[in-house]
């Protein structure tokens, strides 16, 4: 095993992207290395904590199955038990890791032996309260054990439900800061026990009492995750009439001591207690009365939030109308309190919009205002230009809702304030401002229009103002188009959008020609293209304008492709316009002018094509062709076309469609004998050269490209999908994408055709590794179907395994075996002596019978055999891995096991070699 490793860098690259990291190793070997290093007495705690973090963060990546999980947890447990007492932090981390692994690999859910033992150990730890003896240093261990048990209980609710008496005692005895951990754990277990009981059909006093006095084993039955009560349609309840004296005294004492907890833990405790009281009819919510004042006044966001939860669950059984009003006022006050932080204030505004009223009018869960919020109460939340953008938008949305609901007089004043605010924002962007301000302003416009688009006095003024600003700042075009589209998406009546577009069209028309530069023309054409989509807007002016610009400027001579394309994009949308008849001649003139004068061949051709479509097809046909793309797939199809993005939809042939399912696949051709390297070796043979065989061998690698390729054979066949459309596909272009950086780009492969009823064609994929690791290829295909349509389709990923990269020794095949053996021995010698410096040797042993060994060698190593000395029971195998790595095996039959001595000139391959050997020798 290599000893010098830069763990810091390895772990951080693993954490940054486990998938990329594991592309060059396997998770088994990485995990094995991590565990090995954890056992290393010389490694310091800090390094070990770093190593454990891999299992803390990605247990599922390293232990994909339950058995891996159990095995790893066992390993960790043995590491844990051998750690010295002083390694507290490391021990805590290992504890967390074991808990993580057991929960995530479902060992907990399936009640595995390891999970059981672990829970016993954790419980023993929290019961061992004698750590005062050995000072306070062992306290963190108990705290972590509590956290782990808590997590196990959360993931398997009810697990500790028969331990409440013991937990109560522990909670009672503990006076150190660990009191919080015991208290939180006890409350959660109590809540889950009661929740479990509510599932029971009949609950007697005895059943109920027994939960407090339980001190038995763990309840290994699986409850599903419990949702919080505010997420339940119906709150689960115990039957009335149970004797609640004991529970009442428990809950009161928990509540009384709650101030000893940190605010976050206090809020958790409060929520658990609220759920308990809500589930037990014999307990009254008035229990919380004594805490309310403290909670109403709190500056702490989690406690305020817990209060709202309480309000949601208990409504008027705990909160009077007066309380409700007061709480709401506190929320509005907090939503703008100068001493709170912005995210907190935004959260409070969200709480106002979802305020749990005692008597809610609707219960849709959508944003809705509580009836108590009046314009005068919310006046302090009116947006201003001095707000940061999130606050401003949040306030604007809230106040828009307030004024939608308000009485006429108040609403009028309020809405005109909001309108003035929008105008103030527009004035700011008129003065050339940053992108952030522009984006915020358009978001504000969207909110305002969404609520008040029906009020024409405002929406008309906005239209005028936006057009006026556009005439000065045409770079706002994409924002305006975005606004128009989004407003159309969310309103049924697109009146406002049409008005704005009409205004913009007029505005562009009125711009003096001298101001039309190539730069701002690009923006104007974008707007006109969008305008042309509106059936209600007359397009003649657009066409005249375009013709006018082309005739009276040097645009045609410049022949800028982008501008030409943008002009054609407008024309294309006009072609589709419902009143195309009225502008037929004008459009024909324009297209003819472009096809005759525009100095770009592509643009000319396209203009001519449109002209032909326009003049030769009936309106219905034209509409039919153009409407072809109007199905849902349009956006995706368009993005795959490589030519003329704006106009390609016209001709179906230019469009590349995406298949919904996988149509084709590559199936590996299993070869009996190993593939041979395609490169020609230099001829060898004369005796003096054989003396220096190794040097000659190595000289071959100076020839560029020598021995650098792995050739893999596949058959290209149909998948099981039986869509007859794809029975015959033609001119297939296979494209490969390598998932990692270990291989060079794989070039495209062209296949003439694949028919479902014929022999599938063979495809040869040539891989050039930088490093010979297993990899995965993403494959996609472009092809044509019989109807002439082009398609893009993904194929199932192709994985290239480690043995697939093996090549035989790249020497002439007719070279004598003695020569080959000589090369083998030379490489072995230099490897064993540590030259080059990445060399390493290793040993692998396994048990098998004589026949088994022979079979194994025949199946796996036949083509790589260098020497086969049956009598001496020694086999020499050489695997060559491009571009320049060697793995050598010397297999010997020992007394009771087979030994594989391994030598390689690249130790990084050892984990892969190990895994490979394990796999092929696994009985």
């Amino acid at each position, binding site marked *: 095993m290599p000893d010098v490793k830069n763990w810091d860098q390895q772990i951080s690259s693993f954490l940054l992207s486990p998938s990329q990291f594991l592309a060059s190793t396997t998770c088994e070997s990485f995990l094995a290395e991590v565990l090995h290093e954890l056992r290393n007495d010389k490694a310091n705690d800090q390094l070990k904590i770093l190593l454990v973090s891999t299992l803390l963060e990605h247990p599922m990546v390293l232990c994909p199955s339950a058995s891996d999980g159990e095995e790893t947890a066992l390993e960790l447990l043995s590491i844990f038990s051998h750690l010295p007492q002083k390694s507290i932090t490391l021990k805590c981390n290992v504890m967390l890791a074991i808990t993580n692994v057991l929960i995530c690999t479902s060992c907990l859910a399936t009640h595995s032996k390891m999970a059981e033992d672990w829970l016993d150990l954790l419980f023993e730890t929290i019961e061992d309260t004698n750590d005062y003896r050995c000072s306070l240093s062992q306290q963190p261990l108990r705290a972590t054990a509590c956290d782990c048990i808590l997590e196990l209980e959360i993931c398997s609710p009810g697990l500790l439900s028969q331990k409440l008496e013991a937990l109560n005692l522990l909670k009672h005895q503990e006076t150190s800061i660990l009191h919080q951990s015991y208290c*939180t754990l006890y409350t959660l277990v109590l809540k889950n026990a009661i929740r479990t009981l509510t599932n029971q059909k009949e609950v007697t006093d005895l059943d109920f009492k027994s939960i407090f006095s339980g001190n038995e084993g763990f309840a290994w039955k699986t409850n599903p995750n419990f949702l919080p009560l505010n997420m339940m349609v119906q709150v689960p309840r115990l039957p009335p009439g149970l004797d609640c004296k004991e529970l009442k005294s428990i809950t009161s004492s928990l509540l009384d001591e709650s101030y000893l907890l940190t605010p*976050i833990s206090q809020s958790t405790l409060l929520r658990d207690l609220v759920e308990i009281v809500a589930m037990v009819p014999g307990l009254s919510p008035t229990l919380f009365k004594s805490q309310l004042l403290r909670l109403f006044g709190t500056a702490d*966001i*989690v406690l305020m939030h*817990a209060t709202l939860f309480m309000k949601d669950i208990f409504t008027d059984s705990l909160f009077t109308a007066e309380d409700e009003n007061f709480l709401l006022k506190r929320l509005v006050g907090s939503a703008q309190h100068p001493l709170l932080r912005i995210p907190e204030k935004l*959260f409070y505004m969200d709480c106002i919009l979802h305020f749990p009223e005692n008597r809610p009018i609707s219960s849709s869960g959508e944003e809705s205002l509580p009836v108590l919020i009046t*314009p005068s109460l919310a006046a302090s939340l009116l947006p201003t230009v001095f707000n940061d953008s999130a606050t401003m*938008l949040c306030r604007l*949305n809230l106040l828009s809702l307030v004024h939608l609901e308000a009485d006429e007089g108040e609403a009028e004043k309020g809405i005109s304030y909001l309108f003035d605010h929008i105008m103030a924002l527009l004035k700011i962007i008129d003065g050339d401002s940053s992108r952030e301000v522009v984006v915020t302003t358009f978001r504000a416009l969207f909110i305002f229009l969404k609520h008040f688009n029906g009020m024409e006095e405002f929406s008309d003024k906005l239209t005028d103002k936006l057009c006026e600003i556009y005439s000065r700042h045409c770079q706002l075009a994409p924002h305006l188009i975005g606004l128009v589209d989004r407003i159309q998406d969310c309103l049924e009546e697109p009146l406002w959008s049409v008005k704005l577009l009409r205004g913009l069209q007029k505005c562009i028309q009125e711009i003096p020609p001298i101001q039309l530069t190539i730069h701002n023309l690009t923006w104007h054409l974008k707007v006109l293209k969008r305008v042309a989509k509106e059936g209600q807007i007359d397009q003649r002016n657009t066409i005249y304008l375009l013709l006018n610009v082309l005739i009276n400027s040097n645009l045609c001579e410049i022949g800028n492709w982008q501008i030409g394309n943008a002009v054609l994009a407008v024309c294309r949308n006009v072609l589709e316009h419902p009143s195309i008849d009225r502008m037929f001649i004008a459009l024909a003139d324009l297209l003819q002018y472009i096809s005759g004068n525009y100095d770009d061949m592509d643009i000319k051709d396209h203009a001519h094509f449109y002209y032909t479509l326009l003049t030769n097809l009936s309106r219905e046909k034209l509409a039919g062709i153009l409407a072809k793309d109007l199905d849902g797939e349009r956006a995706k199809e368009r993005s795959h076309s490589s030519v003329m993005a704006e106009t390609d939809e016209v001709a179906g042939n230019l469009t590349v469609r995406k298949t919904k399912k996988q149509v084709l696949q590559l199936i590996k051709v299993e070869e009996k004998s190993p593939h041979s390297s395609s490169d020609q070796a230099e001829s060898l043979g004369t005796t003096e050269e054989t003396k220096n065989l190794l040097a000659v061998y190595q000289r071959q690698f100076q020839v560029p490209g020598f021995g650098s390729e792995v050739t893999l054979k596949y058959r290209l066949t149909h998948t099981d999908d039986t869509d007859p459309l794809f029975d015959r596909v033609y001119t297939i272009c296979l494209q490969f994408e390598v998932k990692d950086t270990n291989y060079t780009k794989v070039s495209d492969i062209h296949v003439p055709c694949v028919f479902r009823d014929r022999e599938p064609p063979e495809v040869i994929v040539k891989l050039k590794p930088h490093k010979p690791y297993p990899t995965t290829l993403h494959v996609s295909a472009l092809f044509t179907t019989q109807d002439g349509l082009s398609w893009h389709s993904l194929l199932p990923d192709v994985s290239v395994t480690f043995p697939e990269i093996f090549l035989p020794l790249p020497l002439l095949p007719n070279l004598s075996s003695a020569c080959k053996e000589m090369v083998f021995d030379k490489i072995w010698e230099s490897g064993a002596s540590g030259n080059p410096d990445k060399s390493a040797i290793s040993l692998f042993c396994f048990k098998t019978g004589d026949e088994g060994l022979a079979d194994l060698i025949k199946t796996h190593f036949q083509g790589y055999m260098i020497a086969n000395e049956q009598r001496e029971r020694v086999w020499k195998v050489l695997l060559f891995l491009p571009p320049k790595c060697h793995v050598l095996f010397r297999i010997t039959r020992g007394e009771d096991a087979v030994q594989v001595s391994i030598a390689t000139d690249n130790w990084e391959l050892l984990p892969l070699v190990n895994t490979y050997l394990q796999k092929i020798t696994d009985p």
Partner: protein
Amino acid sequence: MSLRALWVLSQEKGEPGKVRFSRRFPTVEFRAKSLVGSQYVAVPEDRDIPQLLLTELGLLDSDKPYVDARDNCARQHRSPAVELRLNGQGEKTLWPVITVIQGTLILACLPLVEAPSEPRPSLASLASVSQGLAFLTGLQDFLCGPGSKPEPDVLASRLAALPSVLLQVCPLGRPLDTPPPAGLVPAAVSPSPGGAQKQPAWKPVVHRGRATVSVALTEKVKSMQYGKSSRQDLWDVYGKVMCKCEVEGILPSVTVTLTLPPNGSPLQDVLVHPCMTSLDASILTACSVDGNDGSAFSGPYKFPFSPPLEPFRLCSYTSQVPVPPILGSYQLREEEKHLKVNVVLKLHESVKNSFEYCEAHIPFFNHNLMGSVEVKVSSGQLEVSKEKNLLVWVLGQKFPKSREATLDGTVNFSGTVAGPTDPLCTGLTAYVKLYFRVPDLTLSGCCVDQHSVQVYSSAKPRILTTRELVSSEYYIWNSTGDAPVSSGLTAL
């Protein structure tokens, strides 16, 4: 009530973001998966996080004028949570990602949604959201400390300490506490003795030595003055009481009392620290959003509490006072090639004429750089910063006896280089901004009497009380120009 993942990112201007710290909580992830089944969306790997998050926050590709994914007007950024759209995974999104931004640092966490995924529950209904928010603000204090921007090496060492902090406050994704504020370790402490008295989780150690209680009352005043009869001037006062209590004992009892002068208007919107042991209902009744209620309680305000060891904000309040401390007028006129400037500041008679500092800043935006400046002041000195287009009028420690000071003159912008710009201040829309601090004064009249601080402990404690008034966003707008509306309250 758990977090699925936590990230600390940094983004220097124009550079791609970088993950500085991250932590995933796989057991919470396990629950997320079992809660929503096939609707489950996995958390992307860390290398993909910066791109996804920065797109949502509008911080990516600042050189491109419009990117739909970033600038779409229907994507509303009006809550503390954003939604990450995962590329190449259909319509899959990850929500709610809570973010807190400070300077170049972006803190983010993904709380567990304990609810069916459809329909999407509200933020307000999810317990983990407020916990995540509190956790992030605690983390912000831990990483950045009281200053606005920590030095790179300080930040690096705090980031390096995060794993051990998380081991204590959030070992398995369920926050138990917020990270401790940075650099605030109390002086003489020792572990708790461990007796019958239960120890609060927020106070792992106890103080040893002489008892000291310091109470610092800071009031801030904000103002917008327009000098127009059509527009009402505004001034807001808000205060906070910071405490540092070094008192022996596990749960010592301390009471601080705030008093107002006989005719003082009540303290409003009072928010208190969780260590408060009990609270009188009348303290909370006054609320700024409610209009003024003359009959309201006006003190004394008694705050009994058992203090933590680190300094903390005992309470905060807002107050409505009848007059602003400094009344200003600003007149700016355009004359041929220069601007004519006139500023008058009057100190109200109720305000002590003894400042630690007092300055008026007069910036000129959207002009070329200044040329000649011919300005006279009746009191104090004038500093001219030509490269910033800024006049700084230093009034010093005192106003003259008349309590009035004037600045008058002309400024010429003959430079050829453009000066600083501001989207708001165009044309004659311009302001004077005041900066001042007055020790031993509050506008509300609120004060903490040294003798009213009660500490129930054996030794006689040392008690320090201070108070001060500080300006904050104190603007005087040019009365000849259009000033932007700064509050909806007066408009309605």
